């Protein structure tokens, strides 16, 4: 029954908030963090337990809800709970000096976001996916408009309009799937989807691509992303970049592998991802705002992950999982550093980095950027190396070239930022971090170094996860075994 806890606890927390407020001023913050630690420990214990097997929870089959916790979804659940836990610890340090107004709401929203992201990964029912899609969306819209400044509200409005468009197209796809196939269960659908006529398949997959394309920030549909990143606070951006996008990416490719394994569609998606990466990196060059630069860098990395995941083989998917891990950790470090800088300097222009007086933050940002570039001994290298090797083996030299060129462009603006970090000039007062914030940064940095220097600790599990995610017959058997 453990997979239900991952969704139920964060959701229950929201309903219990009025009661928790009576515990005192810090009650909500501490209970929320404690719950996230408990969820992470639970995920970790599942990760390390030897007699663990695939878990399926079904309520009133065959029409009811079912959640599947296999190795692939466990990887994402562990990643999300870890990231959210570290985020909460960082915020505990931050709130001593500068808490958010109306803090109780903030904790409800981040826990809703966690529940929805995990729900997206676990649920095996396409309408449930729509519901979690909307819960994640609504909490993300409110989080991005949280500060209620004109910029934040504009970001929230832009996010909300694109999110509404996405949900319209996703609902249209679900409608057509139900009308023609008479089921919503992913296992049943993956067996019957190939019986549809060709035109209908193209239409449904196009609607699914538009619906998820807005959310996974793929090239023609990602015009809104940088504005949202700039308008919302950099604290929240850390969540968007390391949790929300990753859950949508997982769901999109999960559905793709189940519905249309090894089709022509995936070649199109590989090119879409590569183009997305190249365009984002080129546009990032002329940005002067740190948040926008890293928003474009996120878009580039997401395009890269998209291209790698669309290759549909075990080696590429293993590489994609490594990139996702490295990117989540690195972007969490970058955006938390930017939050600290913004509190001190009240500005996020790249030029303000010249005045930064904090060797610790400088070191953290340099480590994160080197990892994003894919420098050996850091986590980013493993995934990038495996992915490029796989593209070379399968003879996709055009994609390989595009990715290498995009990475070169990426390195230009990272060096621009690094140059500003190291330049000599008038420095401000020393930037103060609390002990708990330093501990969060050091944990993230150690994780980057550990994955980079000893990927063999992780590769066994990640390889298994990639196999489970790619092989639709395993998924169908586990789910149908329960239903029948």
């Amino acid at each position: 029954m453990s997979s239900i806890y991952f969704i139920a606890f964060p959701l229950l927390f929201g309903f219990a908030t009025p009661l928790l407020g009576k515990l005192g001023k810090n009650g909500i913050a501490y209970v929320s963090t404690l719950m996230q630690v408990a969820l992470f420990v639970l995920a970790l214990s599942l990760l390390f337990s030897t007699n663990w097997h695939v878990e399926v929870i079904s309520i009133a089959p065959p029409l009811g809800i079912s959640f599947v916790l296999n190795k692939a979804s466990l990887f994402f659940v562990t990643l999300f709970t870890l990231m959210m836990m570290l985020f909460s610890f960082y915020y505990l340090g931050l709130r001593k000096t500068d808490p958010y107004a109306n803090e109780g709401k903030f904790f409800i929203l981040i826990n809703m976001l966690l529940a929805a992201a995990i729900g997206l990964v676990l649920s095996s029912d396409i309408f449930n996916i729509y519901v979690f899609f909307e819960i994640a969306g609504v909490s993300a819209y409110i989080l991005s408009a949280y500060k209620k400044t004109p910029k934040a509200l504009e970001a929230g409005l832009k996010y909300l309009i694109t999110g509404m468009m996405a949900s319209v197209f996703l609902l249209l796809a679900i409608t057509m799937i139900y009308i023609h196939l008479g089921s919503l269960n992913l296992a049943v659908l993956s067996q019957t989807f190939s019986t549809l006529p060709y035109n209908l398949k193209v239409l449904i997959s196009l609607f699914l691509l538009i619906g998820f394309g807005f959310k996974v920030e793929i090239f023609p549909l990602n015009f809104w992303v940088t504005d949202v990143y700039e308008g919302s606070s950099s604290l929240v951006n850390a969540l968007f970049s390391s949790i929300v996008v990753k859950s949508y990416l997982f769901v999109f490719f999960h559905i793709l592998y189940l519905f249309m394994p090894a089709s022509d569609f995936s070649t199109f998606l590989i090119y879409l991802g590569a183009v997305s990466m190249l365009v984002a990196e080129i546009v990032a060059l002329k940005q002067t705002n740190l948040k926008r630069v890293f928003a474009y860098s996120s878009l580039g990395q997401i395009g890269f992950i998209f291209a790698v995941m669309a290759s549909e083989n075990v080696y590429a998917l293993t590489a994609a999982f490594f990139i996702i891990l490295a990117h989540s950790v690195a972007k969490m470090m970058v955006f938390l550093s930017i939050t600290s800088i913004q509190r001190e300097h009240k500005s996020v222009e790249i030029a303000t980095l010249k005045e930064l007086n904090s060797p610790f933050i400088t070191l953290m940002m340099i480590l994160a950027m080197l990892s994003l570039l894919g420098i050996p001994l850091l986590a980013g290298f493993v995934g990038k190396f495996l992915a490029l090797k796989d593209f070379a083996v399968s003879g996709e030299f055009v994609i390989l070239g595009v990715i290498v060129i995009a990475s070169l462009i990426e390195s230009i603006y990272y060096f621009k930022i690094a140059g500003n970090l190291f330049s000599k000039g008038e420095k401000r007062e020393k930037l103060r971090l609390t002990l708990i914030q330093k501990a969060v940064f050091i944990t993230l940095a150690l994780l980057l170094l550990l994955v980079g220097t000893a990927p063999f600790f992780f590769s066994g599990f990640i390889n298994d996860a990639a196999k489970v995610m790619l092989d639709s017959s395993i998924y169908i058997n586990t789910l149908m075994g329960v239903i029948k």
Partner: protein
Amino acid sequence: MIETFLSYLNQNSTITAMVNIGSMVLFFIGLFGLLTHRHILRIFISISIMEIAIFLFFIGSTFNKAFTAPIVEEGYTNIAVMNDPIPHALILTAIVIGMAVFALGVSFAIEYHKLTSRTDINEMNEMGES
């Protein structure tokens, strides 16, 4: 004359065709509104019209006139001749979600208008390349 016309209208295939074509027209009215209007509330209304078109399409194309309502009570226990209740349940959920997101959007728009007195999305340019 009118009798035949009414019986033609009452056929299952006619109802399905009307619902399908009608919802498609409604969808494109919404899309047209979305593309031509720049007022933020009109954009929300246009997207809501598109959503409603999908709800109508879903209910209409799974509805069969010959079948009874999906309610089990005395005298009506034959599940085989009942309409499928799942689309109704799904659409109810979707209506609630759509309404909630719409309300959230309107509240954002009101707050934004209070601060900046802007309603046109073309004028929303607080951010961007400076």
